[in-house]
């Protein structure tokens, strides 16, 4: 009996083994491709992913795109919409039955708010698959694991990556790994009113070169600002307000200071440079060349009208001012406010780098590149996400490669007055024929995208504006980036408070520096992350 049971058991086990083998072999024959190697050939890669998705029964891939910034920067999300259309076209032409649908185009004006929203919603899987925001947030998001490391994918696309300006690719890295592709950048020129300059005998011939060589410094800016004031012009200088980041900290770099110690990974308060910055602000304000209360001025009612109406000689602004002045009704000299014409902006404004603080130092500008980032959970609203994650992630990467197409980047640059991030895009904006096609929207673009950008295109696409962008592109060679450090925003806010108090005359520059140090020490976490270096220079003179 026992023997019979033994034989029976042995047969059951044998049957089990054979059956499992059969099931296994059947599975092997049904295994679908769930991973594709990127080759660097875009069409080939897109087709391989499309076919792999199709063989897994996926016919629709859903993605959402989140963007932020000024209203003219809509290509930050429409770039993704357009990339989806271009990939869909490749699939359609090659008989692949898969389509990408962009389910959500979420866009908010405040990029800090967008970042906060992303932070709270990413862990719940509710954040956008694509996220365009300042490079400043990239380290935190990468550190949290909220965005995708695309280093390996990018290795296959070296030909595209190498076309980006290297400093911008560096800004998209964290711990040596690439976490995004640059979307745009900008420079912050010093604008000079040509008509005011002519009135006071300020010869602007060759000013760009003089600034580049460090011959024209902030002492010269002071000298001419004072002349302008004496001749009856309301102000010598108007600058931006709000957080001292990133506009006013240009002074620190212009005075040869630094903000970040790469060796220790800490932020730096470079006392001599900060003191000189505060001194310049104080001197300008005390002599009535710069409004004492500029930090609380209204953008639309005070700051921009003062500049476009020629009530100041100098202005520290951004490249995007150039088209902003053409789209918003800031010029009210004739009674009813109206926007400027491109010809007027060209006739009235000269632009240079932010001059060196003193002789022997270099001019600067400051950029805050925006970066396409991919959610580390990209594609999760799609079927079989766990099995097909690799395909979805690679497809998302190919989407941002496509969204970085030179024409998409160039359209964004022209309509929002940001600088192109690729050399190929820079060439396009100098191409008259292409500009004409853009003006007439005679480009191969998604109808939804065309419809949404037609108003902006009508007001901003002009050879004068394209020439301006081409003219200021060289500034990127002088650009500095604010440190992408989690504690930097807190430090920038302290700088802002000190600038405000110094401008208003509530503090001397020396007291301003001490105030900054005290405020840092009052916050233990900040104090741990900041090094205070150097001392107040006693024998320094300005101007």
């Amino acid at each position, binding site marked *: 009996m026992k023997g019979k049971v033994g034989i029976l058991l042995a047969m059951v086990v044998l049957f089990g083994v054979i059956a499992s083998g059969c099931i296994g072999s059947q599975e092997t024959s049904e295994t679908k491709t769930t991973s594709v190697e990127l080759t660097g050939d875009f069409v080939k890669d897109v087709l391989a992913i499309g076919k792999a998705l199709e063989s897994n029964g996926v016919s629709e891939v859903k993605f959402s795109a989140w963007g932020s910034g000024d*209203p003219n920067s809509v290509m930050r999300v429409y770039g993704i919409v357009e990339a989806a259309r271009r990939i869909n076209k490749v699939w359609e032409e090659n008989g692949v039955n898969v389509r990408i649908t962009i389910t959500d185009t979420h866009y908010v004006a405040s990029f800090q708010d967008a970042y906060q929203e992303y932070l709270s919603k990413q862990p719940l899987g509710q954040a956008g698959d694509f996220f365009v925001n300042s490079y400043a947030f990239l380290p935190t998001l990468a550190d949290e694991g909220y965005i995708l490391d695309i280093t390996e994918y990018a290795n296959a696309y070296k030909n595209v990556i190498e076309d980006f300006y290297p400093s911008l690719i560096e800004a998209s890295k964290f711990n040596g790994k690439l976490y995004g592709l640059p979307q745009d950048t900008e420079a912050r020129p010093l604008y000079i009113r040509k008509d005011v300059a002519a009135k006071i005998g300020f010869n602007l011939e060759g000013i760009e070169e003089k600034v580049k060589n460090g011959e024209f410094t902030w002492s010269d800016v002071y000298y001419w600002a004072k002349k302008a004031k004496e001749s009856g012009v309301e102000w010598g200088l108007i600058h931006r307000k709000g957080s001292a980041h990133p506009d006013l900290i240009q002074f620190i770099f212009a005075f040869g200071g630094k903000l970040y110690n790469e060796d220790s990974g800490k932020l730096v308060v470079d006392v001599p440079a900060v003191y000189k910055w505060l001194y310049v602000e104080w001197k300008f304000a005390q002599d009535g060349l710069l409004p004492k209360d500029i930090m609380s001025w209204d953008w639309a009612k005070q700051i921009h009208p003062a500049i476009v109406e020629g009530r100041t000689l100098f202005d520290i602004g951004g490249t995007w001012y150039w088209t902003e002045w053409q789209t918003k009704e800031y010029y009210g000299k004739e009674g009813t406010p109206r926007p400027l014409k491109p010809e007027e902006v060209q006739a009235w404004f000269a632009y240079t780098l932010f001059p060196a603080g003193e002789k022997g130092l270099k001019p600067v500008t400051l950029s805050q590149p925006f970066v396409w980032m991919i959610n580390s959970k990209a594609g999760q609203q799609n079927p079989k996400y766990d099995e097909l994650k690799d395909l979805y992630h690679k497809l998302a990467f190919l989407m941002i490669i496509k969204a970085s197409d030179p024409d998409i980047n160039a359209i964004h640059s022209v309509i929002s007055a940001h600088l192109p991030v690729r050399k190929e895009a820079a060439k396009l904006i100098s191409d008259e024929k292409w500009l004409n096609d853009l003006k007439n929207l005679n480009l191969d673009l998604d109808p939804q995208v065309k419809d949404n950008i037609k108003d902006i295109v009508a007001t901003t696409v002009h050879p004068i504006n394209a020439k301006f962008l081409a003219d200021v592109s060289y500034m990127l060679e002088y650009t500095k980036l604010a440190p992408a450090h989690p504690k930097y925003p807190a430090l920038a806010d302290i700088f802002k408070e000190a600038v405000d108090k110094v401008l208003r005359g509530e503090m001397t520059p020396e007291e301003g520096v001490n105030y900054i140090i005290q405020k840092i020490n009052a916050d233990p976490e900040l104090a741990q992350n900041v090094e205070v270096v150097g001392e107040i220079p006693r024998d320094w003179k300005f101007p």
Partner: protein
Amino acid sequence: MRDVETRPKRGEWIIVLTILFASLPLILGFALLIISSFSKDMVTNLSLSSFRPTIENWINVFQGRLAITGGIRQNILKITLNTLVVALGVSGIVTLISTLAGYSLSRMKFRGRKLMMLLLLMLHAFPGVALIVGVYLLYRLTFPQEPSFVRLYSFFYVVLARAALEIPMSVWLMKGFFDTIPWEFEWSGIIDGASRIKVWRQIMLPLIKPGILAVALFGFLAGWQDLIYVRTFLIDQTLATFIEANIEAEYSHMPLIAAAGTLYLLPTIMFFLTAQQLLLQGYSGGIKG
């Protein structure tokens, strides 16, 4: 002391003027906002020199765009509807729970009643911001795995979470209203054979209509104006998050924001205008001798 009806008119004028004067900054603020929404420029000072009439702002708001040129269009009607869903949801839950709880705390004796009332008051002392971490944790724990439910669940959760913040105060408020109703009403009902729940529904509730309205109104306003809970938990936008997301002063065309702000104010103003008579009415019944 003279009765209201016999008080001299002169004194009344002084009171009216004082109230008007005290609320002038508020009225002025709202007036400037509404005027700006119909102007090409913000009217922020008292002169009307920057008032250039236009209805463009309102057209743009209804088209869901907050920029003069370009910008991404959003479906403002859907956003308004989302706000309404949250506000009505909070209002409904707060009203239901606080009328029930207020009645029990006012009329029934049970163990721990006093402690419960004390704890309710303590709960009210916690601001929503202080609780956000815990509430977020709960959200993560109860989050549905099925993606198609997430959107719906986020509405459900935000309504519950926001209502929970309003309930402690509303319960106290309702208890106060129930306290003003004489016991005799209830007794007569019970003697006639009605159950407690029937007494509550058919006798008590009609008597405290102003209280219910007040609680419903406060609940509605809490949901309508909530920003932090809505931004943290809700996937869709409401008017509050829509305005907040676009208010960055440097980029925004402020008259457009003024139009969105006025739209945001409208239900509140309408609610107060239509309900103020009922709110002031209070209990005015009597007891049969």
